[in-house]
């Protein structure tokens, strides 16, 4: 089972990295950008083939390690059964 976990700063948290990327894009001429937020992405391959079990494991991983709940939120997406 392959999954993708995406972690972003909470919307109310200032994202200086996103701001810096936005500015850099503008500087090189991409002026059609309204906003940029920068997050982390984790592609995780799990042994289990059960989707509910996978979700449960991934949530636990996020809460325990991957995300810092003080300032981050996460999304989990199951990508496919087989390690594609």
């Amino acid at each position, binding site marked *: 089972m392959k999954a993708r976990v995406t972690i972003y700063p909470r919307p109310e948290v200032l994202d*200086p990295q996103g701001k810096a990327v936005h500015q850099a894009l503008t500087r090189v001429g991409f002026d059609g950008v309204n906003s940029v937020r920068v997050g982390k992405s984790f592609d995780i391959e799990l042994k289990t083939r059960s989707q509910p079990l996978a979700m449960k494991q991934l949530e636990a991983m996020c809460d325990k390690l991957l995300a810092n709940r003080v*300032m981050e939120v996460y999304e989990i997406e199951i990508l496919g059964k087989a390690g594609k």
Partner: protein
Amino acid sequence: MKCGVVVFPGSNCDHDVYHVLKHLLNVETVFLWHDDADLKGSDLVVLPGGFSYGDYLRAGAMAGLSPIVDEVRRHAEAGGLVLGICNGFQILLEMGLLPGAMRRNLGQRFLCRDVHLEVVRDDLAFTSQYSVGQILRMPVAHAEGNYFDTPKNLDALEKNRQVVFRYCDPGGGPDDPNGSERGIAGICNRDGNVFGLMPHPERCSEELLGNVDGLALFSSVMKSAAAAMEVEA
């Protein structure tokens, strides 16, 4: 008095703190290995600076799950002294022993230079040799020192007198080298026995290095430990 300096894989200021405690202040000091759940009877536990586990996820995140961390938590909850410097501060945040979180520096870059600090609390075991309003000079060296919490939590932090050091300019005016909320450079828990700060007091504790503003932090602890022992006796 006995001090324990925790060594995580990737700690790199462990020897620096050890040097100050053991060689400059002549206090019994031992290293504590992250994998041993044993504080070896330490009265003060120091979580030193460095890049525990490379800080590859978030600074301090992975170290916050080491076996020794449970012992540190027990020690803190029992009122024992815990000091986290730089990466150690980040670990204390990740452990939840101190509130808030660290973002990347506002300038997005690692920053190594001297900063100035205003002493906000001088009634802690860690700060008794300083006085409120005193301005200290100390080096910082970090990429993730931009302190964050929600406005509500920050208000609570201030109300509970948990802010210990605040960044300032040499004259005491406001300054914020890394973007920290309200210029926060160091905070303690409510009971004042757990203290974390981003600047490095161990890097300014010797005349040879041209600055001894950090030494009083360590000698404060020694003094309060001595006083505590007298009371016990």
